[in-house]
């Protein structure tokens, strides 16, 4: 768009592109007054093998992909390690999926807004990579979302960003020591909590990167909402539902809202801002003050965390 006479930059960190773009925008505020951050992806009408190949560009070719380790296969191995170590069950994963689909039914922008899902449907869905079933995996979606960031407060509806952190890890999971947790998330979370000067208990609403159901459980643990292995209890007690004490993925998450790769990170922020403004309609939470978004790329190779406060 040359007639605009403004700089336009593309940011690419795989599934974390949206979060990374916001991170870059916030840093660029030192020079610019208003910055628009756009996340967009068109993924439909491509056969799934081709889509898999394109998405795989974010993985390690030599160590993983030459051996057939696609993203679902990676997360399947991670889920299995989590199950072996902490006795997490398939039903715990199903509960995450069910909760996200229920939230998605209240979000008219969600990919699966109209789809009614129950436990039987999830349990009987085809296996993608054992133990993960179809309902453990986020879909291939089209979507776009945009934000405007500024140093200046313009209206009472503006939401303040109080922390922005990004961390990285090895691309291939085999180069890591622990497969049941993502180091990049932990590093970024610590950095974000320090910047925001808050304790994890003060956060009222969370958007985590649930590209696979197991990723939501691991994110809860890495972000410090519960100790390692405890996430299953939170899910069983319904604490992450809309009426729970720490609602997660109120828009349906990547699972039900959809996962248009570059747009997902921005869509998470859109949901948080909508909730903090009290404009989320049927799925509106009671008076949320502080919120967190967690956006990861690849198999946790990049993690971007933002924290927001109602101003």
């Amino acid at each position: 768009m040359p007639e605009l006479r403004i700089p336009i930059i593309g940011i690419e960190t795989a599934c974390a592109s949206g979060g990374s773009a916001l991170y870059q925008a916030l840093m660029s505020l030192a020079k610019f007054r208003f910055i628009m951050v756009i996340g967009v992806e068109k993924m439909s009408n491509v056969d799934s093998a081709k889509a898999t190949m394109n998405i795989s560009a974010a993985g390690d070719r030599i160590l993983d992909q030459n051996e057939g380790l696609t993203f679902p296969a990676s997360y399947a191995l991670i889920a299995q390690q989590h199950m072996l170590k902490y006795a997490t069950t398939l039903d715990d994963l199903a509960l995450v999926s069910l909760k996200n689909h229920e939230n998605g039914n209240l979000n008219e922008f969600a990919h699966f807004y109209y789809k009614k899902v129950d436990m039987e449907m999830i349990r009987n869905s085809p296996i993608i990579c054992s133990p993960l079933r179809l309902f453990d995996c986020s879909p291939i979606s089209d979507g776009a979302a945009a934000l405007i960031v500024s140093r200046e407060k313009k209206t009472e509806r503006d939401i303040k960003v109080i922390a922005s952190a990004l961390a990285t890890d090895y691309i291939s999971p085999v180069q890591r020591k622990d497969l049941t947790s993502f180091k990049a998330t932990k590093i970024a979370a610590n950095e974000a909590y320090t910047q925001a000067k808050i304790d994890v208990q003060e956060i009222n609403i969370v958007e985590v990167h649930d590209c696979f159901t197991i990723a939501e459980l691991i994110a809860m643990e890495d972000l410090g909402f519960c100790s390692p292995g405890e996430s299953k209890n939170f899910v069983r007690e319904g604490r992450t539902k809309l009426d729970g004490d720490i609602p997660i993925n109120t828009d349906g998450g990547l699972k039900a809202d959809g996962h248009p790769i570059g747009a997902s990170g921005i869509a998470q922020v859109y949901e948080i801002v909508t909730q903090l403004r009290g404009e989320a309609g049927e799925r509106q939470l009671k008076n949320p003050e502080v919120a967190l978004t967690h956006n990861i790329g690849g198999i946790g190779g990049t993690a971007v965390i933002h924290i927001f406060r109602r101003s």
Partner: protein
Amino acid sequence: MIWICKKCNLTWYYPVDTCIYCRSKTETASSDSYTIRGITEVFTPSPDHSVVPYYDLLLEDEHGNFYIRKAFQSYDLGNEIREIRKEIKVKRIGVIGTGVTGCGIAQVSLQVGYETVLKSRSKEAIDRAFKKIEMNLLKAMEVEAKDKVLCNLKPTERLEDLSNVDIVIESVIEDIKIKKQLFKELDNICSKKTILATNTSSLSIDEIASVTSNPNRVIGMHFFNPVPKMHLVEIIAGEKTSQKTIELM
């Protein structure tokens, strides 16, 4: 195999001769056995891995390093296995015979990415087989992918064209005389390392191997039709078939 810089406490999973930080010489470490820590059965095909289901194993060596390996058989968690990376890198497969089984074997060989030499007695049979394989590939993949895969198929009438393949799979008529004659010729044409496999359900591997100068590289492979759909292959070791040959197959 991994490359280690002890000074910097760093590990690489690909060849690194000198440490990228301190420039000192790296050491290599390899393991004789690996423990299976994880396994997943993959049902979704991707362009380089179009034959599903297959398994991905998460292996841990004695130094605590992880590896991912693809396999076509299931393993139990906690079991130990020896390095499954193949010693002889198989790149080229030769298939003799253009019947239903021969075409099926060639198709699967192409689909998993091997260069495939398909040998038949007549030009007509070869043309027919080429068309049949093309049709069957189209059922499994898109036109673009099919074209790419088909570039790896080399149809031929000359047995000499099998001289540089790593494995020959013979799938001609179940006739001991014809097979023995064929293996005698293959023994002269192929390199001493080439594995010679015969697709048979009833004939003696030892008898077929007896006409070759190196019977330890002769093995039986019994395919089931339709080959692209059936995941079962019976591997038949002869009296003199070497352990190395058996493991590779």
